[in-house]
């Protein structure tokens, strides 16, 4: 049996012909394809970065150009001397320098940023909060070359006056400047995490007779812990990759010393300082790209872990992303 013939085709307005409808549908479908294609390109950029940075380093695996191979980046002597007569490409001094400066920055930056986040989210009067947050965001807006300049001209003199150190530019100088650069990240992410803790957590604690400070430390902070962890990891990732500050402030000598007042050469600064003068495709060039690949992989892993922590906290607090 045939169904009733009432709705045989879509109702149309008088000025809309079949061709109009078809064109509209065609446009719609084309647009969707283009948008999906753009999203795929955006996704593939991260792969392109890995491929094109790694590609320049890859021949190190089977070649030995100018004394540079994958082995020479790891075997003793622990020296980074790429432009001497017998070049040495051991990356250990650079790893040590990076770790030294980054850890100093974390040691200085994390407590300050966390305490400030705690103050803003739990203790500060609301009107003051309105001012603190944008001010710290403003700190994030200072270009790293400006921070490096400040460390070079002002901070280095101040440190020398305090400690009477021999080397004007050193790991501590870079560490403090780097701390200023990562404080906004750690602050913003952990402040977000603290603020995201539902109000009824606080109310329950206060109702049990806890003080506001006890509530903040024993209830709010533990609940926001994954977010705070994410903040620290993201800050760490940023510190490892930061280039201009360490290039300008750390002295750049690959010293094998743990002292904060000795010079340090980081991985990022090494690339920035040396790539301009190397032979394209040479051993030195390839080792610098190898260091870049290392940086990329390490920061990617850190970012990925940080993201996961952040998501886990939201799952725990709200049961969904």
């Amino acid at each position: 049996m045939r169904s009733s013939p009432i709705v045989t085709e879509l109702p149309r307005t008088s000025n809309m012909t079949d061709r109009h409808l078809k064109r509209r549908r065609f446009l719609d479908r084309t647009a969707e394809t283009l948008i999906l294609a753009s999203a795929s390109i955006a996704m593939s950029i991260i792969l392109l970065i890995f491929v094109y940075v790694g590609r320049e380093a890859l021949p190190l695996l089977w070649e030995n150009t100018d004394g540079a191979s994958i082995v020479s980046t790891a075997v003793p002597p622990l020296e980074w001397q790429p432009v001497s007569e017998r070049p040495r490409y051991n990356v250990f001094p650079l790893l040590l320098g990076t770790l030294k400066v980054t850890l100093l920055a974390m040691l200085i930056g994390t407590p300050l940023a966390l305490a400030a986040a705690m103050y803003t989210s739990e203790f500060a009067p609301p009107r003051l909060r309105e001012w603190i947050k944008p001010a710290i965001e403003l700190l994030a807006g200072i270009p790293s070359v400006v921070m490096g300049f400040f460390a070079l001209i002002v901070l280095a003199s101040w440190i020398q006056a305090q400690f009477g150190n021999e080397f004007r530019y050193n790991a501590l100088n870079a560490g403090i400047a780097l701390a200023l650069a990562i404080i906004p990240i750690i602050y913003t992410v952990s402040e977000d995490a603290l603020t995201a803790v539902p109000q009824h957590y606080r109310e329950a604690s206060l109702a049990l007779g806890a003080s506001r400070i006890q509530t903040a430390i024993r209830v709010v902070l533990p609940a926001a812990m994954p977010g705070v962890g994410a903040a620290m990891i993201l800050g760490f990732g940023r510190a490892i990759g930061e280039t201009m500050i360490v290039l300008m402030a750390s002295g750049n000598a690959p010293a094998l010393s743990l002292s904060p007042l000795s010079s340090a050469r980081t991985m990022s600064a090494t690339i920035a300082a040396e790539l301009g003068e190397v032979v394209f495709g040479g051993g030195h060039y390839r080792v610098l790209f190898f260091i870049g690949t290392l940086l990329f992989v390490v920061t990617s892993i850190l970012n990925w872990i940080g993201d996961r922590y952040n998501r886990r906290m939201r799952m725990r607090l709200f049961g969904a992303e």
Partner: protein
Amino acid sequence: MRKAIDRSVVILCASATLLILTMLAIILGNIVVHGTSRLSWEFLSQPPLQGMTAGGIFPAIYGTVLLVLLMSIAAVPFGVIVAIYFAEYAKKESKFYRWTRMAVNNLAGVPSIVFGLFGLGFFVHGIGQALDRGLYGGQLVLGQPSILWASMTMAVLTLPVVIITVEETMRAVPQEYREASLALGATRLQTIVRVVLPQSWSGVLTGAILAVSRGAGEVAPVLFTGAAYYLPRLPTRVNDQFMQLGNHIFVLATQSPDVEATKPLLYSTVLVLLVLTFLLNVTAMVIRKRMRSWATR
């Protein structure tokens, strides 16, 4: 006893906040005090003279503006399209969405020096040299560091900023608007172009401003992709090299033949860059704030 502990915790947290803000004030104060002495119209409009110990920074300002312009032309439209995908088309359970989201988040955390390496490897040596082989018969035209490749590198770096900002505003557009538009017979594309986008212009603007502010301040990505130490003339073609404010600061600070003579110039250059980025950041903040209060009304 408990009260004393409580109070000291608050005081500790407050002083940490104060310390951070004080350091910010010291940095800004120091630069403003020392930077204003040499600031003049001549400084902004002249090229560097006498081995960069006199004259101004006009080529660096010009190069920076050109860089962020070319960068925005590439990053903003593309970023908006990807944001449209995230806000309007993405199915949250799909694998594609999850991977794209992860890739964009990850892109935001890649160190700027790695972008520099990428720009050199992909744009200069990859695309540039391929174009030279294909279009110019192997002649060296595009396969060298230039303002074009520097801005493309910077565009890749600032892309996540644009995407995240625009997506956020698009999500803030009430679902009812879309439903109303679709109910009237509009297609998905028409709904996005005529309803969602007009409501999101402030987000596109904020994203563009934040990207420009970021792009104007970054140095590491352009070190090997096109920024020059010193150039006597302004860039006129896309394959010219250029001077950039941030790079100029780096050069003046670390490679000057006469440090004391350069210092006043250096301070003023830093002040110019700082004022530029801060004005952009504050504008973005104000737009965002007004947008939010508008959204909650």
